[in-house]
Every structure is written in C-alpha cells, then in structure tokens.
C-alpha cells in the first residue's frame, strides 16, 4: 500500500484467506499435523496452592480477587519489577507455560529479567490483590486461550482489572508529527463500569490497542 511519500508499506493482512488454502481438502495427515501443532501451542497455567503444591486446574475454587493488575510486554513487566514487586510483600502464585514462534516460557518461577516469562503474584497482606507480569509474547491464536484460562480461575464479581502496556510512539497517530511529541506519554482506555478518576488522557481515535492487552 502506498503512503503519502510513496514508500511501500506492507498492508497488514486484509483478506486473510489464501485461495489455495480454502481449495485444498484436509487429508488425515494434515489434520494430525494441525492437531499436534495446536497441542504444542496450548497454554498451561500452573497455580501454586497454599500447601505449596502446584496444580493446573482451579475448577474447585476460583480465586477471590478484588484487584488484578496485568503488565504486558517487557517494559511494563520491568516497571513492576522496579517499582512494585519485592520478595517481602509479594509471593508467586502461578506461572504460564507456553510456546510460540517468538518465545518459550518454562514452568520455573526463578526468572531473569531477560527471560520470557509470565508469572502471577499475590500481595501477602491482601491476598485478593493479584498481579501478572507477562514479558513473553502471547501469539494471536493463544490470546483468547490465555484470557479464558486466567480469568476462568477468578471470581469476577467486584473485580477491578488494570492493564499496563507499552506501544511504540511511531505507531501513535496524531495530526502533528510524532517526532515533536514529548515522549513517553500515557494514554488510557476504560470501560464504562470504571468510575474512578483516570490519571491521564483517554486514547483518541483513530488510535487502537491490539493483541493481549486488547483481548
């Protein structure tokens, strides 16, 4: 797609459906390969119970949660590490294990800042406050699964969710050039149920949020 300067920009997927893709019938081998790939891309969440054991299911008792703070991306995760998290007030209660073409996380909770990881912490003084630090990239086809598995474990009544994320300034659309914008700057999106004061201006159209924060 040509822009004002005439430079060619790769238009993000438009039709999204390859004609050859739809014409081909799936053979049993194709189906098997697809199933294996899907299994490989499944997300596992391991929760640490009070007893210290880990479990994958929380079907018996969803977490009672009043505040859930999710930091997505390395910058947001680093923000939490630098200013919020410490081993005195917070304890690790869960870890996400996933694989995609961009990263792989493990089930270890002893991570380095440069690793890709997705960990859940709980405030020791108020166990209804949960925090998630997600520095790994959750692929498009895994985002919904992540969402269902994480929120499926929580009691959602009275829950307040805060999502922290970063985007490149170059992606921000504004009348003036982004070069002259004082950055970094904060923008927010909120649901109509959020009644508290927002600490920064709201994100104006035509700007949008994608990927896991959007999900």
């Amino acid at each position: 797609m040509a822009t004002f300067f005439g430079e060619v920009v790769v238009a993000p997927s438009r039709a999204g459906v390859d004609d050859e893709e739809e014409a081909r019938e799936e053979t049993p081998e194709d189906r098997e390969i697809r199933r294996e790939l899907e299994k490989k891309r499944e997300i596992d969440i391991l929760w640490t119970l009070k007893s210290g054991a880990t479990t994958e299911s929380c079907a018996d008792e969803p977490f009672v949660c009043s505040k859930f703070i999710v930091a997505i991306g390395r910058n947001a995760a680093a923000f939490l590490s630098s200013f919020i998290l410490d081993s005195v007030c917070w304890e690790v209660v869960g870890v996400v294990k996933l694989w995609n073409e961009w990263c792989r996380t493990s089930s270890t909770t002893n991570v380095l800042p440069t690793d890709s990881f997705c960990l859940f912490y709980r405030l020791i003084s108020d166990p209804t406050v949960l925090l998630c630090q997600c520095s790994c990239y959750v692929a498009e086809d895994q985002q919904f699964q992540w969402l269902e598995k994480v929120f499926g474990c929580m009691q959602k009544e009275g829950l307040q969710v805060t999502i922290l994320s970063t985007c490149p300034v170059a992606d921000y659309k504004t009348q003036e050039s982004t070069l002259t914008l004082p950055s970094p700057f904060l923008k927010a999106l909120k649901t109509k149920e959020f009644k508290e004061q927002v600490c920064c201006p709201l994100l104006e159209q035509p700007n949008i949020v994608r990927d896991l924060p959007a999900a």
Partner: protein
Amino acid sequence: MFVPCERGGGSASSDFKGFILLMPAVSVGNVGQLAIDLVISTLSMTKVGYFYTDCLVPMVGNNPYATAEENSMELSINAEVYSLPSKKLVVLQIRSPFIKNKYRPFCQTLLSWVKSSKCARVVVLSSSHAYQRDDEQLLGTPLRYLLTPDLEKAAGGLMQELNWKEMEKVAAYPGINDTEKVLHIPGGGITKLLFTESCSKGIQMAVLLKFCSEGDNIPDAFALVNYLNEWLQLIKSEVNTSSQWKIPSSWRLLFGSGLPPALF
C-alpha cells in the same frame, strides 16, 4: 457468540426477526468494512451488542463514530452489532483479520446465528482483486452482485431492473477445459465461503462487491455504498450522493501521522 449490550431495551433491542443483516467481508482494500463504517456513521446506528469470538485478532479503541467529547469514550472492539429498527436493518462491523484456521468456524457460527435470530436476508459487502479481471471485466462497471437461489427467487427481478451485473464464473481449469465454471473471488476473504454455505443452507444472501486494489480505498467504499443504496435505499439518492454519507471521525489519519517539519 452474540452478546447484547445491557440497555433499557433488553431483549427488544436484540430481536432481529425479519431484519436485513448487512455485513462486510474482510477483503482487499477493506472496502466492505469502510462501506459499513459509512452506513453506521450516516444512519447514526445504535450499538446493540458484540460478538464474543476467538476467531478474530483482538483490538480495542474508543468510539470510532464519535461526534463530540461526550460520546467519544465508549469502548469499541473487533466485531460489533448495530441496529436501526425503523429500517429493519442490523449491521455487523468486523474490524480485524481472522486468526489462522479460524475463518471456517466463524462462518459456521455466524450463519447459525443468522438462522437462530431469524434475519430475513443477509447482504455481504466485499471486494476482489482488480488485477485478476479478464479482458471483458476490464470494461464497464467494476461492481458486481451475487444472489443465493433463495434470494434469486425473491429479488432476482429487481437486479434486472437496476441493470446490475452478476459476478462472472471462471473456468475451473483455464486453458485446458473451458466448460466447467466455478465461482472465484480472489481477495474476497470469506465471501465465497459465506456465499456457498448460504446456498446450501437455504439462506437468502446477496453479495455486493467491487473490483479494486490496495491503496486509498475511500472512493471504492463510496462506490460500493452507493451501489448498495440503489437497492436498499438507505438514504435518499440524489444526484451527488457521495456528499450525503457521513465520514466517521476514526477515518482521520488513515495514512499515518503528520509530517515532521524538519523533513523540509
């Protein structure tokens, strides 16, 4: 799949029995989606719900049809439903591409929702690669239509009156055997799948598409929405109908931010 908004209307606002469902296919130039934006914006349609689906790439932003500070703060996501009961019109807008391998389940779920909500007919706005046209298609109008057999019975005559051109079929094995013809909509996204599934499910569906290329597709969107208007008469068609469609505020800055003055 369909989640209604909680409003005073309640179930009344999500009763689409006998309505026409207007929807885009995510296709070349995003022309169908742009045309739908024009319809929603011009008719000031009310959002009545959304689709909770894992088939589309997630996205969220503030109200794309905001006209003032007060109505700019409503969140908007990738698949939302708007309605205008006075015209018995319900519109689905899709704002992001399909996740790999998910377009089939989406079509299946969508068509069962169409059946269960008892929509009278479905109109899909779409587009197809202009470079794939043959010599004959290069001449004349770039707009085409398709009707499922059930809608052909109900409205086929009207298309003749409007002097519309039906989408031509192409040879299944070009150069080898020209007798066997198939429907081919390159760049049309899920258009062909939706159409063929509707044919077999007895759904009254029309496809309206325009041949176009990637680029500034706003004129294509206007052409498509005026084409639609010839049939559905959503707005009064006067000599210069282009000026009567309201461009939504989210169409600002379609080609990126302003230029850095230091460049010059």
